[in-house]
């Protein structure tokens, strides 16, 4: 029970509980407390990652490996960027004494999720995470947020019931709900349990045809929140568990073929479907949402190959997706602030006015489309290679073709928003303040450097998995 790692989930929780009391008088304290907590966590994590000596003590309850560490790092990184952006942009219109605690609780729940060692723990924290995200989406006035939140709640609820059914099948087959029990004793009941649990998390991850809530939730949410949701929240609540299951499934290979191949099929359909749907979107946030769905397709396909390279690629792609999608959503928020809309038909020629926003967007979208040597290229490459060598050659070709489609729709977006002739009414648009740009710039640097120094990143993960 006592473990240092638990602090990653306990400290944000305590901070969340403390914020309403400390911040009652002065609202600034709320923001500072939230930022400091997350920054401290991030610094601690960075230290842990670069000093491998500390990592080898025994931990009883929570699992601890490269996957956990990289996921924790992703969570804290995206959270600090979004919270910092929210506090400096002044775009949070809801009450701060409930907004920041909600973010803190969701960070805590996500950390617990990635530290969890059994399915039921995963389930509880996933629900806690979901509850906070409903409130975050609906935290502003207006109908869109409520619509997104209600659709998110109702459309993903069957997933919870399916996961519980899966868990009861595991209970039936021996009573242990831990991930690693799968490798020791495997029976048909375990197989059925996994089928249900995979289905539940596929709904939570928004794979086709369960993706309908995703665009609505992202579009309806306030600007900083949609970056946070798209960057980590929905990835951890759905995709992380799928990757974890695929790692467990790998241990009994042939038997679980049906599960993994249907997941792979869903992944490939998702990436095709969502890329095409993104082509004609008119709202910037909605287009980004569809792009996010299609990247989920890549991750699912990669993980479902059950090949070490594919799983590694999937984990890396979760991390990369968190970086580039956060940049894009934060930039859309900056644009919303200076232009007043996210409708792309009303934009054009913002390049002159907002050069930093434009260039960080280009880096992020190149990374999404997989242009070398940015980080997105490597993870996509790993996924495609793994698809090819495990015999899904057609899927590999499709994945390759649709990364070109990705590039196509993002170039359309870039052209509509930043290039071309400036519109009269947008002449006065101003670049975002330096502090608002800081998160996007930081993330872009991470994209570039983790791309260039990719061999080191690969080494780190390969050793620890």
């Amino acid at each position, binding site marked *: *029970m006592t473990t240092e790692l*638990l602090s990653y*989930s*306990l400290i944000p*929780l305590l901070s*969340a*509980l403390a914020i*309403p009391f400390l911040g009652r008088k002065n*609202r600034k304290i709320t923001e500072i407390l939230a930022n400091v907590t997350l920054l401290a966590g991030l610094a601690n994590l960075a230290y842990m990652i670069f000093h491998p000596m500390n990592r080898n003590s025994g931990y009883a*309850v*929570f699992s601890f490996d490269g996957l956990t560490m990289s996921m924790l790092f992703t969570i804290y990184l995206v959270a600090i960027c979004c919270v910092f952006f929210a506090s400096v942009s*002044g775009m*949070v*219109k*809801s*009450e*701060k*004494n*409930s*907004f920041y*605690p*909600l973010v803190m*609780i*969701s960070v*805590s*729940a996500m950390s*617990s999720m990635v530290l*969890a060692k059994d399915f*039921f*723990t995963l389930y*509880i*924290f996933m*629900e*806690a995470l979901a*509850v*906070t995200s*409903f*409130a*975050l989406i*609906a*935290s502003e*006035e207006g109908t869109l947020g409520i619509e997104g939140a209600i659709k998110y709640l109702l459309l993903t609820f069957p997933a919870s019931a399916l996961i519980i059914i899966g868990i009861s*099948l595991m209970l*039936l*087959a*021996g*009573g*242990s709900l831990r991930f690693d029990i799968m490798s020791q004793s495997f*029976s*048909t*009941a375990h197989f*059925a349990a996994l089928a249900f649990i995979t289905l539940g998390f596929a709904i939570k991850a928004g794979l086709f045809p369960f993706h309908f809530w995703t665009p609505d939730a992202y579009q309806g949410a306030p600007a900083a929140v949609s970056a946070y949701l798209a960057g980590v929240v929905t990835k951890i609540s759905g995709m992380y568990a799928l990757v974890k299951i695929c790692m467990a499934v790998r241990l009994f290979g042939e038997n679980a073929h049906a599960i993994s191949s249907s997941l792979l099929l869903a992944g490939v359909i998702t990436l095709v479907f969502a890329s095409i749907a993104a082509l004609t979107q008119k709202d910037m946030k909605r287009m980004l949402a569809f792009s996010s769905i299609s990247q989920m397709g890549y991750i699912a396909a990669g993980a479902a190959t059950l090949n070490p390279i594919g799983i590694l690629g999937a984990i890396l792609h979760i991390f990369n997706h968190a970086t580039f999608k956060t940049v894009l959503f934060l930039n859309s928020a900056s644009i919303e602030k200076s232009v007043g809309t996210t409708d792309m038909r009303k934009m054009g020629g913002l390049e002159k006015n907002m050069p930093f926003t434009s260039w960080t967007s280009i880096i992020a979208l190149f990374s999404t489309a997989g242009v070398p040597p940015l980080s997105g290229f490597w993870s996509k490459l790993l996924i495609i290679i793994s698809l090819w060598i495990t015999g899904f050659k057609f899927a590999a070709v499709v994945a390759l073709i649709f990364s070109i489609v990705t590039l196509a729709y993002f170039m359309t977006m870039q052209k509509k928003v930043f290039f071309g002739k400036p519109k009269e009414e947008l002449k006065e648009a101003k670049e975002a303040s330096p502090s608002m740009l800081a998160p996007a710039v930081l993330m872009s640097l991470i994209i570039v450097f983790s791309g260039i120094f990719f061999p080191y990143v690969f080494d780190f993960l390969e050793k620890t998995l």
Partner: protein
Amino acid sequence: MTYNLFIYIIIAAAAILAVTAGKMLTSAIMLAVASIALSLLLFNFNAPWAAVFELSVCAGLITVLFISAVSLVKKEDESLKESRGKFLLLPFLALAAFITFSVILPPWFETLSGYAKYPAGEFKVGEIIWNLRSIDLLGQVTILAAAVFVVKSVFGKRSEQ
């Protein structure tokens, strides 16, 4: 076995009534009936703690929440006219589904129940909650804290801006 069957039929019937009922208040009450029947079932399964929880939280708290929400949106109850045909269809569908399921599913369930495996040791509920699954308590605290802030966020005052 007959007792359980009886309770299941009550639950299913209450669920169907809750879905088909014209008034939302009736629906909420029917849901409470289903909850009470479920808690009787849990007692019968020798799970008193779960039964008490089900009775107090689901049949009690949730029903109260539903009824208060219904009274808050009362006006809407009368204005929202749904076509009744699709609800009247449910009993037929449920019966058809029952016949179909009872043909298809039981063999599969039988296979599954063949895999039932007894665990190494039997623990008391308290032991399980406090010692073996203590991390779930953290989860419960997290989700309760989340619930508090959710309510605060949804119903709280808007900020100065």
